[in-house]
């Protein structure tokens, strides 16, 4: 089975996604994630990035969404018709956007819930040690209710929580959202380390394009439900459109005013 997939662990073939049987949100999206790799999925607000992740993890079905066309293959198996639980059993875990900790549980209890599908006992203890090794900040927070820790620590908790599940593929939705730059840097370094040392493939959704392109060697760009571009990050960084709309740099390399970019985006959206 492994050979057949040619080192590609996840493959989206031209998927179409609808909410409530009427709202068409994704229109023919194809994405590949290589074994052990990091792939970024970029795009403006409402482009359909989260929807893409939810269709992979199966959470879509809980928001009355459905993959109406195309297919999603994980390790050679078609998974888009499976329930969220079945998909997690196969090793795919989505870290949903917005640092969704279980606020009334302690940090360590949050982590334990992450091991829900992996039983309890000594294996869980080992996993806990591993998470604390990557997120040493959480050690002193372990007995505090997760609702009361800082935003950065909450982001670490939700990433650590998914780590508890021994993921074979992690889907990360905007881990940088609403965090201070220094913290973002810290978290992204850990994410990179997790990928390199634990060999966990990542599909990373980000609005922070610059950062995403430094972490992920390959990226896809989504615009109102369609893929408009995909290439290596090196090439994308040189692409004038990307520089202009997403990196906020003009060809001379100077920073454009934020307002200008926004304005352009808005105009562009009317056109599509």
């Amino acid at each position, binding site marked *: 089975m492994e050979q057949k997939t040619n080192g590609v662990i996840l493959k989206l073939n031209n998927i179409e996604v609808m909410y409530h049987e009427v709202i068409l949100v994704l229109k023919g999206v194809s994405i590949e994630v290589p074994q052990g790799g990091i792939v970024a999925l970029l795009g403006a607000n409402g482009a359909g990035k989260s929807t893409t992740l939810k269709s992979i993890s199966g*959470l879509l079905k809980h928001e009355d969404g459905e993959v109406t066309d195309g297919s999603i293959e994980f390790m050679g198996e078609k998974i888009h018709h499976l329930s969220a639980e079945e998909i997690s059993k196969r090793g795919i875990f989505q870290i949903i956007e917005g640092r*969704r900790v279980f606020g009334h549980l302690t940090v360590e209890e949050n982590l334990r*819930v*992450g091991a829900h599908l992996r039983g309890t006992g000594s294996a869980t203890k080992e996993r806990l040690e591993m998470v604390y090794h990557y997120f040493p900040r959480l050690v002193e927070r372990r007995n505090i209710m997760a609702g009361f820790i800082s935003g950065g620590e909450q982001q670490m908790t939700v990433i650590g*929580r998914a780590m508890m599940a021994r993921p074979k593929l992690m889907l990360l939705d905007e881990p940088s959202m609403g965090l201070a730059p220094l913290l973002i840097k810290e978290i992204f370094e850990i994410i990179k380390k997790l990928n390199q040392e634990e060999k966990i493939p990542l599909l990373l959704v980000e609005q922070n394009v610059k950062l995403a392109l430094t972490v992920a060697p390959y990226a896809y760009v989504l615009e109102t439900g369609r893929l408009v571009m995909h290439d290596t990050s090196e090439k994308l960084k040189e692409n004038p459109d990307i520089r202009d709309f997403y990196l906020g740099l003009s060809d001379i390399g100077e920073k454009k005013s934020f307002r200008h970019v926004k304005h352009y985006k808005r105009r562009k959206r009317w056109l599509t």
Partner: protein
Amino acid sequence: MEIFLQLLITGILVGSIYALVALGWTLIYKCSGVLNLAMGELTLIGAYVCLTFYHWGIPFVLALFFTLVIGFILGILTEIIFLRPMVGEPHLAVIMVTVGLAFFFKGLVMLIWGTDTVVFSPPVFPIQPVFLGKVVVGQVFLWAFVASIILLVAFVSFFKFTKWGLSMQATADDEMAALSLGVNAKVVYALAWAIAFMAAGVGGTLLGNINGLNISVGYLGLLVLPAVVLGGLNSIPGAIVGGLVIGILQNLADGYLSRFTPGGVKEVFPFAVMVIVLLFKPYGLWGWVRIERV
């Protein structure tokens, strides 16, 4: 002062039963968002089941254990048959389903067991009262308290230390996040109903031992509503404290106020407290301000 102590202690002992039933109610609300108006009838069914076993000659403790088992099964069946089809429907529709359930269960009880008051005979607990200092309490109250506390501790340990217990709490906190970790929400809802049915069954049995058993035990079960409103609907410690407080208030009202009225103070007082709490502290003493997500 002695009268006060007497009323207070009896109140705590009875209140522990309410606390048990309130925990069950809160669990359903926390985990699945269902406001269950059939809790009184759940207590009723459990009580009759236990009584039936007992009258078959099964020792009381064993009968109580079987009641727990039956409660577990009935809880899961109730969830699958009546509540699961309603997932995602408007809150009001789901509440109406629980009202329907209440009538259904009550009808079932009348059909099977009739409407006459029955008592556990021979009495399960010795009639002689015991003295706690200067306070006199019936042994039935004392044992009801012990049984309630044992069950409360068991349930709370389940939530704290077991995998499914933690996952139930997680689902209550953020269902989507729990789903993303592979927690099956259907199992969580079913477990919540199972535990609620178990708690209600034991609560009903204990109340039946105190007062005898007829349809009105179902109204006592309804006292969980003021208890959980006081505790804040979705807090387990809140439900426990709420149950105790309602037990105490009910007894104090009965002891001090019923002389001045033709009757009914005992029944009405907890609900009066509920209204006052709703006016001044709509989220109860420990409730979370629930953030509605769709």
